């Protein structure tokens, strides 16, 4: 972590004062945007297997664009979001980005979410020398294009930094793990981190008692749960994506097994909250909608509006967490680059972004390491009494929240 909570809150307050003023009070006095709209094009998985999360990004983008226009748009012009449905298909995302550049002739590009679709969009952006800011790209080593900018502060080497952070935290628990089971989907963006966990655990002298991989889309987690139970590790690193975390928890519950420490790489946040057996589950995050994150007025205002709109849209989870925060940050990055360069020139924006830091609701982002990633601003959250709360690093913990091991606080 390169920034501490105090400097974040100070910076956030400054940005927030600017942002919230713009979002609320000042909106009424902002100059009405006029002229030809600045068109920002992108795709999202509005249908298909990734669409549950796609709706989070859609809602976030709608809120941001609406508020951006209320405070004067970009360069005094209104902002129009040209959004297409990539149906959760990376190949379709490629075609649609091609359309956005050549047929729709959008001024700027904003990325889809999910690594596969972002890679597709990145290829098109590179072909046309467009700058691409994207939401949640999971494999920094694959981000080769120098005009792409990640909004998810994963750091350049998450396969090292993420397990190190989680094991640092567990070392403070009353029962630090001496053995580990690493079970993982072979989905690329979680698999390489699971392989990194093997190395980090080995370096720390934690004995690996089980390593299992399954294909994405696996339905039967009973045998995997049985093997975990038989290995009985102190800590399970679950390279699960989406529902897989719930499926393994459910399968373990059916054979009467409750793990001691258990981490899920990319869980489905809402279903995990609703499963009683998930109490104590750990995951990584860049933002949760509780203090100190919401001490930033921009973040607080966004959380408030998002909750209202998500409830109105009938979404089962109305909390702002990693996906919505990364999405919001992507728009913040675009706005910052346009404002700073006073134009829509892709090369100028890219050069500015590589040389400067951008204040976002997840913290200050920089883009000057491998794949234009910067600091790993990840935190660890835990399900406690039906809520996700950040427990690590301690300065980012929710008020009064501490790491719990089977319901007992560290």
């Amino acid at each position, binding site marked *: 972590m390169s920034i501490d909570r105090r400097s974040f809150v100070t910076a956030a307050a400054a940005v927030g004062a600017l942002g919230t003023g713009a979002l609320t009070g000042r909106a009424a006095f902002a100059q009405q945007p006029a002229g030809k709209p600045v068109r920002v094009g992108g795709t999202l998985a509005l*249908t*298909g*297997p990734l*669409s*549950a999360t*796609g*709706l989070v990004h859609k809602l976030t983008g709608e809120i941001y664009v609406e508020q951006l226009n209320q405070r004067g748009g970009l360069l005094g012009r209104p902002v129009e979001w040209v959004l297409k449905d990539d149906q*959760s298909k990376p190949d379709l995302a490629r075609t649609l980005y091609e359309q956005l550049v050549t047929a729709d002739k959008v001024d700027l590009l904003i990325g889809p979410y999910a690594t596969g679709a972002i890679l597709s969009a990145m290829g098109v952006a590179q072909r046309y020398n467009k700058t691409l800011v994207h939401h949640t790209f999971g494999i920094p080593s694959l981000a080769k294009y120098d005009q792409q900018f990640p909004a998810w502060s994963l750091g350049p080497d998450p396969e090292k930094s993420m397990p190190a952070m989680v094991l640092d935290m567990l070392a403070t628990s009353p029962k630090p793990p001496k053995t580990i089971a690493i079970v993982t989907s*072979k989905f690329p963006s979680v698999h390489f981190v699971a392989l990194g966990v093997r190395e980090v655990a080995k370096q720390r002298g934690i004995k690996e008692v089980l390593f*299992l*991989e*399954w*294909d994405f*889309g*696996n*339905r*039967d987690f*009973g*045998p*995997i749960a*049985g*093997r975990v*139970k*038989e290995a009985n590790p102190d800590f399970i690193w679950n390279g699960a994506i989406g*529902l897989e975390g*719930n*499926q393994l928890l459910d*399968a373990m519950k*059916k*054979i*009467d097994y409750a793990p001691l420490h258990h981490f899920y790489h990319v869980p*489905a946040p*809402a*279903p995990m909250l*609703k*499963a009683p057996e998930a109490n104590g589950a750990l995951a990584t995050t860049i933002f949760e909608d509780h203090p100190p994150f919401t001490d930033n007025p921009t973040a607080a205002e966004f959380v408030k509006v998002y909750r209202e709109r998500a409830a109105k*849209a*009938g*979404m*089962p*989870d109305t909390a702002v967490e990693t996906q919505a925060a990364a999405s919001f940050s992507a728009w913040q990055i675009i706005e910052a680059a346009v404002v700073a360069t006073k134009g829509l020139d892709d090369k100028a924006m890219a050069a500015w972004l590589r040389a400067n830091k951008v204040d976002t609701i997840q913290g200050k982002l920089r883009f000057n390491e491998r794949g234009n990633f910067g600091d790993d601003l990840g935190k660890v959250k835990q399900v406690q009494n039906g809520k996700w709360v950040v427990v690590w690093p301690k300065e980012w913990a929710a008020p009064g929240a501490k790491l719990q091991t089977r319901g007992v606080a560290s």
Partner: protein
Amino acid sequence: MNFPSATLLAQSVLAGLFTGALYGLLGLGLSLSWGMLRQINLAHFALAFLGAYLTYELSSHRGIDPLLTLAVIVPLFFVLGVALHWVLTRFRVSPFNSLLVTFGITVIIEALLQWTWTADYRKLESSYAEHKLQIGPLFLPVPELITLVLGVGISLAVWFALRSTDLGKAMRAAAEDAPIAAAFGVNQNALALMLSGLNAALAGVAGVCIALAYTLSPSQIYAWIGVVFAAVMLGGLGRPLGPLIAGCVIGVTEAVTMTVTAPSWAPLVSFSLLMFVLLVRPGRVA
């Protein structure tokens, strides 16, 4: 590699049987439709998920016991099945084209599910999920037991009905040689409508089982197609016990593979088994 304990192996076999029973239940209607009506009904999977979502809705928001939703879902789906067959015969859809038409219906139903319940995950919280039986070191979760009992019971009932009742014999005769059956007074059209209704009702029952044991999202319709088709082909078209037996063979094979080797090998082993059986005994295993 550590060899798994006997308890772990036995628990895996049970898990495979439970999963296999659901493969069998899903495959039963598909097999009858394909074998006796000459319709490759891909919409069967979409109907099953529609049944699962209705179960979720009726149980979560109307407070109806999930098993009691069968009283609504079975007749409703019977009517849907009748309507589907009427449309397919009215427009003289060929067996191959039925694959395309029912794929289209699947996409429409998926869109309807997403429009109604959104793409977010939905989980039916029922009291059944909290219960499990224990026999020695082995655990038998109640939702999976219900699926197994329904799968075995319904497959046996359909097998008995087709084999031993006049109605069943008439259906088999119509499927075998429609003109000759008609010459003996069999009303082929009425029987086909009835059989299509039964198949859709079976999809509804499978949907209730899916809702009891799995988290729902519209796109998961497609996750079942490959393995259930394998169970249907292994079991033999139009054979009521075939999908159940083949489903259990696949389920147990996959579960034991996951227990003994890497879980990612499971699909490879089950589909290798399918190819082997089709080579050795073309057509079916059951």
